[in-house]
């Protein structure tokens, strides 16, 4: 096995194990910190796939932003509220959890189906790009490519997302505003 393949399996293993731990542990705070390990392992997988920009963005947005905000919400809520959430019914399977189990199982079936149907070794577009030499090398500079594509081909989705974020910002600012005294 090549070094890259060893790394791939190693990081996939870490990602899966830490994700399972994050989902199953009863200590909510710890599960958030383990989620950080999952995200980091995923970033490593992106680097192996030569998508280093995506990997770094993942670290910036998820670890530096979203995870910290989740922990913030945790610390601002009192310990009693957390204890109520943490007291789960002892059994792993129960009637109350049936919808969640059903959803998870269905989603799992869909994913297995995708993996089996996709036939990853003979994908059409991969073969085409290898044939036309339209591939990237580990030393390629990808940001120019991303920037040009964002401003030309994907301009409409890009602008739609920016409008959405602006709406969220305005909403947050409005909600946190002091009410005028009457």
């Amino acid at each position, binding site marked *: 096995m090549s070094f890259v393949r060893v790394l791939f399996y190693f990081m996939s293993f870490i990602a899966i194990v830490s994700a399972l731990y994050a989902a199953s542990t009863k200590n909510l705070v710890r599960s958030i*910190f383990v989620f950080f390990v999952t995200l980091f392992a995923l970033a490593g997988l992106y680097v192996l796939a030569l998508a*280093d*920009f995506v990997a770094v963005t993942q670290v910036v947005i998820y670890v*530096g*932003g979203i995870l*910290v905000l989740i*922990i913030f919400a945790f*610390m601002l809520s009192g310990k009693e509220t957390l204890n109520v959430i943490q007291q789960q019914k002892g059994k792993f399977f129960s009637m109350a959890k049936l919808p969640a189990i059903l959803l998870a199982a269905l989603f799992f079936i869909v994913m297995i189906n995708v993996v089996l149907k996709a036939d990853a070794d003979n994908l059409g577009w991969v073969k085409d790009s290898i044939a036309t030499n339209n591939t990237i090398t580990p030393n390629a500079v990808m*940001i120019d490519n991303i920037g040009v594509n964002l401003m030309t081909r994907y301009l409409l989705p890009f602008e739609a997302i920016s409008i959405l974020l602006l709406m969220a910002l305005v909403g947050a600012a409005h909600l946190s505003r002091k009410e005028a005294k009457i």
Partner: protein
Amino acid sequence: MNYYITYFIVAVGLFSFSAFFALFGVYAERKISAFIQDRLGPTETGKFGSLQTLADIMKMIQKELIIPAAADKWLFMLAPAVIFIAVYMGFAALPWAPGLIPSKINLGIYYIFAIISIETLGILMAGWGSNNKYSILGAMRSAAQIISYEIPAGFAIISVVMIAQTLDMQAIAMQQGVLSPEKIKFLGFWDVTQIGGFFSWNIFRAPHLIIAFVIYFIASLAESNRAPFDIPEAESELVAGFHTEFTGIRFALVFLAEYSMMFLVSMIGVILFLGAWNTPLPNIGPVHLATWTTGMGCGILWVTLKTLGLVAVQMWIRWTLPRFRVDQLMNLCWKVLTPLAFACMLISGVWRLWLM
């Protein structure tokens, strides 16, 4: 295989450098603070007290590692390591001299920006894991402060990146001296590609970057949790903030991280704004000062000198200014620095399009 051995040697070298810097950084801080407050500072251990920090670290190593009974054991033990590793990994992408960079990645500055933000998570881990109200207050203050100040720092960095048109630290450094592959103009009108020296530094290539540099410097003080932005530690209010419960070598690791962070943010500032490893001496007619003083050895010397200068300014500010209140801190960040940083970014775009 030799490749991997080189990587290990580089990693160990960077670690010993940061440990060495932290030791003598603490000594310098104590001497500078003593000078500013008209005291003597450490005098007993060694000549002029120069062995004081070595004695301190010997004491730290021998101390018992105490884990509070109510603490979350794993989070508590891992937190100092996470804090330090986040800072230490940032060193991987910093260029020291022409052709001398531990890891030449073309996302350099973006990678460093991302990896530094993990430090926040380590601080939150320490705060929550200690199960101590002072620790958790300190950790929350720290997280709020770092997240807020990342925004002006990020926009100051973006305004440099827009001028330089690359995220590669080595390429940004290369553009600010006589080795530049492209034409450099001093203040946008005088061609100084052959002259080099301080004329070709980024802050003089585009003068609005001086404002961006000041914004970045203030934000970097906040990100390394140093006075006047030290509300996370605030001795007079919170005992010692998020590292209240740490003892022995774990406490030392937190301090190692703080001093490494000071060096790291100063070095990023030097690379982005103050000409990286390029000499401040220009070529004057037949006297090719810039060409003579650009090279491997001189590069390391210049970048270290400039960085240590910035670190000294950080210490000077710490012992001169009083601590900010939380609302003053947020006002400064959101109402002053962020709009100014946005303006810098806008000017950068216009500058790049019309004047370069």
